[in-house]
C-alpha cells in the first residue's frame, strides 16, 4: 500500500501543471500572463494545501503507524475505532463543552462590553484597548502567565486567597477545575476581540431606528431586544461562526496550560490529534480525527447559518 500512496504523491503535482499548460493554448494561441501571476500561489496551495487535504483522507483509510512494516487499507476502520474509543469521546466532549460555554459567554460579554463602550471618548478608547490588547498576544505567553497565576504556591490568585484565609486551589491539577480554568482564560483572551466586532456592527445600525423606538416610548431593554439585536444579526452570526470554529480547533492554550491533563480532563480534539499524530505517530488514526474535526466544523457552521436565517424578521 505504501507504493500506492507514493504513486499518488507523484501524480498530484503534474496534474496542476498540466492544466496550466493546456488552458492558454486554447485561448487564441496567446500566452496568458494570468497563470504566471498565479503560479507561485497555486503551486504552494496545490502542494501544501489541496493535495494534503485529499491525501489526508486517504491516510485516514489506512492503519498506518510511522515506522510500522505494513500499512494495511482498513476502509472506515479508523473511524469505527474512533467512535469506540473512550479517549476520543473524552476529547470530543471536552471540545464541545469548551466551545458551547466559551462561545455563549463570549457573545454575551462581548456584546455587553460593546454596548457599554459604544460612545467614543478618551476614557472609552483606553478601556477598549485594554480589553483588546490580549488579542494581540500569543496564546503561548498568555497560557504561560495563567499557568503560573493559577499556581497554588506562587500564583497571585492562590496568594490572595491565602491572604484572605481561603484555601489556595490547585486549579490546573484538579480534574474538576482545570477545564473551567482553561475556558476562563480563553474567554479572557477573546472577549476584547468579540467586543471590537460588535462595536463595528453596532455602529453600522442607522440611528433613525433608535429614534423611532424612543419616540414610541420603548424602554432601554426593549430597544436592545427589538431594535439592536435584530439589526446586528449578521454580526452576531459572523462572531458566533468565527468563535465556534476557533474553539473547536483550540490547541495552544491547552498545550501550554495543562498539556491536556490532569488525566486528559482538558484534552481537546486537536491536542489528541497532536498526540496521536506527532507523539504516537499513528498517522492514519490522527488523520481520521482531523476529518471528524472537519465534519464537526461543517455541521455546526451549517446549523448556525440555518438557525440565524430561520429567525429572519426583515
Amino acid at each position, binding site marked *: 500500500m505504501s507504493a500506492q500512496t507514493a504513486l499518488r504523491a507523484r501524480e498530484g503535482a503534474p496534474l496542476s501543471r498540466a492544466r496550466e499548460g493546456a488552458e492558454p493554448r486554447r485561448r487564441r494561441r496567446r500566452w496568458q500572463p*494570468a497563470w504566471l501571476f498565479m503560479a507561485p500561489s497555486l503551486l504552494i496551495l496545490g502542494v501544501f494545501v489541496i493535495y494534503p487535504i485529499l491525501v489526508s483522507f486517504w491516510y485516514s483509510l489506512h492503519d498506518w503507524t510511522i515506522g510500522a512494516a505494513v500499512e494495511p487499507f482498513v476502509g472506515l476502520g479508523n473511524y469505527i475505532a474512533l467512535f469506540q474509543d473512550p479517549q476520543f469521546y473524552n476529547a470530543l466532549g471536552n471540545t464541545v463543552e469548551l466551545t458551547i460555554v466559551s462561545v455563549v459567554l463570549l457573545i454575551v460579554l462581548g456584546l455587553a*462590553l460593546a454596548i*457599554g463602550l459604544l460612545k467614543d471618548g478618551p476614557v472609552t478608547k483606553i478601556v477598549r484597548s485594554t480589553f483588546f490588547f490580549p488579542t494581540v498576544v500569543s496564546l503561548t505567553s498568555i497560557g504561560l502567565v495563567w499557568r503560573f497565576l493559577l499556581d497554588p504556591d506562587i500564583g497571585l490568585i492562590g496568594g490572595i486567597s491565602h491572604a484572605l484565609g481561603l484555601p489556595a486551589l490547585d486549579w490546573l491539577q484538579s480534574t474538576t477545575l482545570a477545564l473551567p480554568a482553561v475556558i476562563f482564560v480563553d474567554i479572557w483572551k477573546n472577549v476584547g476581540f468579540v467586543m471590537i466586532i460588535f462595536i463595528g456592527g453596532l455602529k453600522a445600525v442607522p440611528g433613525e431606528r433608535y429614534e423611532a423606538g424612543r419616540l414610541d416610548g420603548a424602554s432601554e431593554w426593549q430597544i436592545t431586544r427589538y431594535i439592536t439585536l435584530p439589526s446586528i444579526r449578521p454580526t452576531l452570526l459572523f462572531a458566533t461562526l468565527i468563535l465556534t470554529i*476557533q474553539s473547536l480547533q483550540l490547541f495552544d492554550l491547552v498545550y501550554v496550560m495543562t498539556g491536556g491533563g490532569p488525566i486528559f480532563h482538558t484534552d481537546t480534539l486537536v491536542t489528541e490529534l*497532536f498526540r496521536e499524530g506527532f507523539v504516537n505517530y499513528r498517522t492514519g488514526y490522527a488523520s481520521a480525527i482531523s476529518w471528524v474535526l472537519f465534519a464537526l466544523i461543517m455541521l455546526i457552521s451549517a446549523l448556525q447559518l440555518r438557525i440565524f436565517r430561520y429567525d429572519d424578521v426583515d
Partner: protein
Amino acid sequence: MTTSTEAVGARRRPIARLLPGLRWLPIGVGAVIAVVPFLWMLGVSFRSENDLFAHPESLLPQAWTLHGYLGVWEQLPFLRLVLNTVVFAGVTTALTVLLDSLCAYALARIRFRGRTLCFYLVLATLMVPFQVTLIPVFIELFHLGWLNTYQGLIIPRATSAFGIFLLRQAFLSIPPDLDEAARIDGAGHFRIYRQVILPLSKPALATVALLNFMALWNDLLWPLIVTSTPEMRTLPAGLTLFGGTHVTDHAVLLAGATISLLPLAIAFFLAQRYFVAGVATTGLK
C-alpha cells in the same frame, strides 16, 4: 414588564441618568482583570524565586532583580529563538504579501478561462481546517528533507488563501478605468500591478501583512511540528518546550514571554487602528 408606556417613560429618566455611570462598575472590574495578568507577568519577570514563594499575594516585586532577563540568555538559546521567529514571521509575511497580491491581481484584473474555477478553488481551501493538512504536509516535508529547516517553516506558509481573497476584493474596488488608461499608455500587466494597483491598495496590503505577521509570530502548532532541535525553534515553541523542563525559574520564563510579546505590543500601541480595523473586518487573528 407589564408597566404601561407612560410609566416606563416616567421611570426611565432617573434610571437613564444612573445607568451610564453604573455600567462603569462592571466594566472597570473587567478592565482590571484584563490588565492585572500583564502587570503581574512584568513584575514576576523582575522577581527572585524566594520573593515569589514568600509573597505570592503581592502584585509587584519586594525587591527588583534582573536575573530573569539575564537568565533568558544563559538558560535558553534565546538569541536563536528571537532570530528564528524574526526570520519565520518576517520572510513568510513578505512572501505572502507578494504572492497573494500577484495571485489576487490575476483573479481581479485579468480575464482568462478558468478564473472562476481558480477563485473557487482558493475559497474552498479556506473551509478546510488547517489541522487536516498537518500530517500529510509533515510527511511531504520529511520526503523533501525540509523538516527542521527554514524553507520547511516558510514555504508551505508563504501564501494564504485568505490573503488572496481579501486582496482580490480590495483590487476589485479600484476603478477599471485606471488600468485602462495605463494600458493605453502601453503598460503591461506587471507595470499596472506595480504602479497602479499596489499603490492604491496600501491599507489592504497593510492589513494582510499585519494579520499574517501576528499569526506567524504567535504560532505554536506549526513550528512545534516542523522543527525538532532547540536551534530551529521559534519563541512560542521554545518557551513552551523549555518551560518546566530545562528552565524552572519563573522569572526567566516570564522574562522570555515578555520579550516575545514586546514587538507586537509596541506595534499595537503605535498602530492600534490597523489592528482593530484588520481584526474587525476579517475576524482573523
